[in-house]
């Protein structure tokens, strides 16, 4: 970036690419070339505002930021014209003419930059500090923002010893962000205490919860940060070799991390005798083949050793006997991403954020029936309601806030009446849900809680490694019961069976996958039992969701516009303009397309 020039950042994380950011970037590059301002367009990762992708951010020489969301190649051109000053008068004239012409045609109305106050006001960015700001493929960008300073603080002139680094992490109160919340400092201290001269550090990037993408975003947008955290972990415990286990479904994360390792090695932040010290570290990316269970640390180790990813009984814990039988510290991506900040600012600064037992910040993937979905980072202690209403902008389409599903398939549902629960490991655990790795799905009154439980259990059941009897067969039987209930075929003893299965699946499985698989069922049963009962005893889905238990009917609001008939994929609504439409129950597949297409709220669910 040239000092004193405008900088245009275009987000090209996987989410940006998926929403068409590449043509946007090309348009911006063309415009910059025309303006004679090469080098001002910067490819960055994602800043978390996934609901507005593709995103373009224009930073003025004075540092003022203008953010544009939902940018297309066309609007990108207009953005460039608004913010850039061509160095040739001819270009300037042409741009003004084009602006006028487009103004007449109103082809690409470009509004003012989006306000972002509400969305960001309650966030606190530590992990996401650089995301969407720096070019992940350019180590200089990272270095310009204090990158590798924490590592340098440890190595150069020996300002921070390994024990001091561990003390700082312990003092920060950082707990594992992968879900279980084990104190990171304690894990490192245990690792350091092992007598074995060969030790390993591993970054767990096998993020698999449906709807969660914290790790992907960080690895894509700020990979050096994770490498630096991992290097400090290796320094702290005395490891010289480490791995980043990243799922193969994250090709950009893998590519960026590999590139970052190469750059870091070139600049001497990884490799032999880093920064002239006696500390050496070799890091390598290993791709996971897509098994959810490999996010469980013992299964991850098996997979890393080239075996089938199957969890093992703990003890022994990996920190005692892990990769290839040697002490191994395994930390999650987000946990490691906190580390450089803590070292730079001191444990106390991190500990100053949050609650007594949950310090610092937590990244969440906010999704579901919410106005502003995406990746957010909040200080611990903020309430669920603040997240949903202030950061997420409330429920979409003005519907009622019913519950949040926290922690993905291992987590649970917290009802709206408990929405003032703070984001805190212990407070969340008390509700029956878990902090989890950061999936946060917001549900409205049209979401059927039985269906939600079924959805998550279906996922865990399919992803069970099949080792433990209760997890392999018990979850299947639970799923069959849920499917039965959703189809209106539930029996009177099904809830009792479900509960007893849930109890033993949770207590008689080796790993976290099985132990937590019943959570979505248990919490929905705890808070929404009457919904289950309505399915079973009244053969009715109160949320109007379960296909077998609902019908669609056209009300007198119908104006005969045929939108529904056009939307129906199975021809269950006859095309009869200016007549009240009718849904043929026998053909209808309950896909809900007609109701969504209707502009007059003339289709109701019975």
């Amino acid at each position, binding site marked *: 970036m040239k000092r004193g020039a405008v900088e245009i950042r275009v987000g090209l994380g996987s989410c940006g690419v998926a929403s068409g950011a590449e043509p946007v970037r090309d348009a911006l590059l063309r415009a910059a070339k025309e303006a004679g301002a090469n080098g001002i367009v910067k490819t960055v990762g994602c800043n978390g505002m996934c609901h507005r992708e593709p995103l373009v951010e224009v930073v003025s020489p004075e540092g003022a930021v203008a953010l544009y969301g939902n940018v297309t190649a066309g609007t990108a051109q207009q953005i460039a014209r608004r913010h850039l000053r061509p160095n040739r008068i001819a270009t300037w004239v042409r741009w003004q003419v084009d602006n006028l012409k487009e103004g007449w045609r109103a082809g690409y109305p470009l509004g003012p930059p989006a306000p972002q106050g509400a969305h960001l006001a309650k966030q606190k960015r530590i992990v996401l500090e650089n995301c969407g700001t720096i070019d992940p493929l350019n180590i200089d960008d990272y270095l310009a923002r204090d990158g590798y300073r924490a590592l340098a603080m440890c190595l150069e002139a020996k300002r921070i010893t390994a024990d001091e680094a561990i003390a700082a992490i312990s003092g920060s109160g950082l707990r594992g962000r992968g879900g279980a919340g084990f104190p990171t400092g304690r894990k490192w201290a245990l690792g350091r205490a092992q007598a074995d001269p060969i030790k390993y550090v591993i970054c767990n990037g096998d993020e698999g919860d449906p709807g969660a993408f914290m790790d992907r975003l960080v690895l894509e947008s700020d990979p050096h940060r994770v490498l630096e955290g991992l290097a400090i972990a290796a320094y702290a415990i005395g490891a010289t070799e480490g791995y980043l286990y990243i799922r193969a479904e994250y090709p950009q994360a893998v590519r960026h991390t590999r590139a970052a390792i190469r750059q870091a090695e070139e600049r001497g932040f990884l490799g032999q005798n880093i920064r002239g010290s006696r500390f050496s570290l070799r890091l390598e990316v290993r791709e996971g083949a897509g098994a959810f269970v490999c996010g469980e640390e013992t299964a991850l180790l098996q997979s890393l050793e080239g075996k089938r990813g199957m969890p093992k009984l703990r003890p022994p814990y990996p920190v005692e006997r892990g990769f290839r039988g040697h002490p191994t510290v395994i930390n999650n991506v987000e946990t490691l991403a906190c580390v450089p900040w803590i070292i730079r600012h001191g444990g106390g600064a991190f500990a100053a954020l949050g609650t007594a037992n949950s310090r610092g910040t937590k990244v969440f993937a906010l999704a579901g029936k919410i106005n502003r979905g995406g990746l957010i980072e909040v200080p611990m202690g903020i309430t669920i309601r603040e997240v949903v209403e202030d950061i997420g902008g409330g429920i979409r389409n003005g519907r009622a806030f019913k519950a949040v599903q926290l922690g993905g398939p291992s987590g649970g549902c917290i009802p709206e009446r408990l929405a003032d629960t703070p984001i805190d490991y212990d407070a969340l655990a008390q509700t029956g849900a878990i902090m989890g790795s950061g999936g946060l799905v917001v549900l409205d009154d049209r979401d059927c809680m039985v269906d939600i439980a079924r959805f998550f259990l279906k996922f865990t059941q399919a992803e069970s490694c099949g080792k433990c009897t209760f997890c392999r067969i018990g979850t299947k039987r639970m799923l069959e019961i849920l499917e039965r209930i959703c189809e209106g075929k539930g029996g009177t003893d099904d809830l009792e069976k479900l509960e007893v299965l849930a109890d033993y699946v949770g207590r008689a499985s*080796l790993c976290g996958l099985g132990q937590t698989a019943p959570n979505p069922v248990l919490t929905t049963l705890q808070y929404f039992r009457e919904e289950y009962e309505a399915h079973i005893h009244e053969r009715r889905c109160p949320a109007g969701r379960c296909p077998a238990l609902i019908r669609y009917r056209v009300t007198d609001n119908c104006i005969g516009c045929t939108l529904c008939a056009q939307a129906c994929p199975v021809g269950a609504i006859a095309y009869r303009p200016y007549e009240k439409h009718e849904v043929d129950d026998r053909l209808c597949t309950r896909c809900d397309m007609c109701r969504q297409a209707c502009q007059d709220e003339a289709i109701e669910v019975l």
Partner: protein
Amino acid sequence: MISLTIDGRRISVAPGTTVLEAAQWLGIRIPTMCHVPGIEPASSCFLCAVQIEGRRTLSPACGMPVAEGMVVVTESEDIRTARKMALELLLSDHAGECVAPCAAECPAGLDIPGFVYGIATGDTRRSMEAIADRLALPGSLGRICPRLCERQCRRSDLDQGLAIGALHRYVADLDSGAAPYTPPRAPSTGKSVAIVGAGPAGLAAAYYLLQQGHDCTLFDAHSLPGGMLRYGIPANRLPKDALDAEIAGVLRLGARFHMCERWGEHFTLAGLRERHDAVFVAIGAQRAQGLRCEGGEHALAGIGFLERVANGEPVELGDDVVVIGGGNTAIDCARSAVRLGARNVRVLYRRNRQEMPSLMEEVEAAEAEGVQIDLLVAPVRLAPSGRSLLLTCQRMTLGEADASGRRRPVALDGSEFTTECSSVIAATGQSVERSLAEREGLAVTAWGIAADERTLATNLPGVFAGGDAVLGADLAVRAVTAGRMAAASIHQFLSGETVIGEPAMAGIGLRPMDDAERAAIFRLIEQAARVRAPEIPMERRLVSFDEVEGRLPDEDAAREARRCLTCGCRKADCCLVRSLATEYGADVYRFAGARRRFSQDLSHPEVIYEPGKCICCDACVRIAAAAQEQPGLALIGRGFDVAVGVPFGQPLSSGLRKVAQECAAACPTGALALRTARACESCSLAGCP
């Protein structure tokens, strides 16, 4: 050394010891299935679940290393529930059947594939032992049993069911030669048992009680033992010498018979209880139900008629005989009448042919002998008219189903007709003489004496009852089974043990079975017709009580035996899942749902792999890995569909080259079994429980 507490007992063990090993040193038994000593534990089946103080979850003892101060509980309500549920879940996904469908249907629980296998391999002695283990009087039963088993034979889905009755008669007949099989007898216990009734139930009870070393005295009102087998079934179906040969077997074991002694006349139950240590009441259902219509007293009782024929007494029937009833007794009466020279024999039955309780083969045989079956006819009136009888009947039609599930016959108005005949035999059922029993203080039911279903214990201590005396007139095979069950209970009673009856093994069937599964089972089976037993010519059938069906020739018997699909599990007797399911009282269908399907890998020369029975304990996977088999075995797939297989879809023969036998021995269920294993005795491998 590390000290810990298991079930309140302290023990010090070396570091690295597992909780399971520590418990074993204390003599505490923890059940395991996936554990293979000397191989790295998998800790997957959760049968060895124990509670370690301070842990939220249950822990598998097989893989859990001991820790200083650890407090372990190995038995509790919670732990039992977990283990039971683990078994129930495993069985809910088990495409296997412990016993063959024929054996599961047999009231006696005869190991049918087991004894048939003996015939197929020429080892009929082994067959006889297998039969005698479950069934007293096999020769008689082989002749007269309605063979519920054959209807369940899986072959009937392919061609025809196996001729099981003919085969077990074949074995029994061969055995009745010069050196008949006599089961070993335990040393005398000095206890004596009185058995009232020397029919099939009483004889069977004596047969098994004598083997246990108890003295048995049988009391019977008739002059010869055998009960209904002798007096209710004509010799053309069950020759008296065949029956005598089998009773001789009971005599050889040391039974004492007090014949011509009638309960209430010559002895009382109270007296028997004083003189003996236990009593088994097996008096049968001897009272004939008369013809319930006007003039019914002019009819002969079917059962009385058959007894007189059996005793060789002359019976004057005349030329025109009418038998009323649709059961086996009716058909036996009709066929006996033919043999006594009646020219015109008719059977009248008030429902249709398919409702007839008698065996269809018997009905067909009777018709072949000239008996006329007149259906949907009921008697209204019987009146003497000179030397003959006038029987008035009416035609019936079938109405709504009654309690028995059969459609109730309803009279058609104005359909009465009268027929003249020389005699009428009423074979309309028998009932139990309950008044004596009641007088002596035995509780009764609507059918007979009240006895516990499992133990056959009555309300009087030391008195047991079974057979027709309890059930009402029923199948002989149920009577001999009752005798065996009573013997087990009486033995427990005499040994001072809690009387629980015969231990019942948990068992599971292949159900529901779909077409694909059936096709997998029949994949390598060629069609072959069922054997037919030889019959004597019709001329002799019509004039003599010679046995109609003969014994199968050796060749035919062996060929028929080879038709057996040997259903059931090769490891039924040494399956850990089954024995633990029995121990923990698992309800095998509690969690029934989607399950794996039956399939077979026959590629390996030593073992057969049936993935449907695999419980994914991965013992074989670990054994193969330890032996460095290439490529060995692996768990394949994810979720519910995980299965053990050879990587890349190769057959078992290429996965296991060195340790197939060890794997089969370690397999806790019938998924991997030796080709030669039919029952446990042939599986002599180390590690086989």
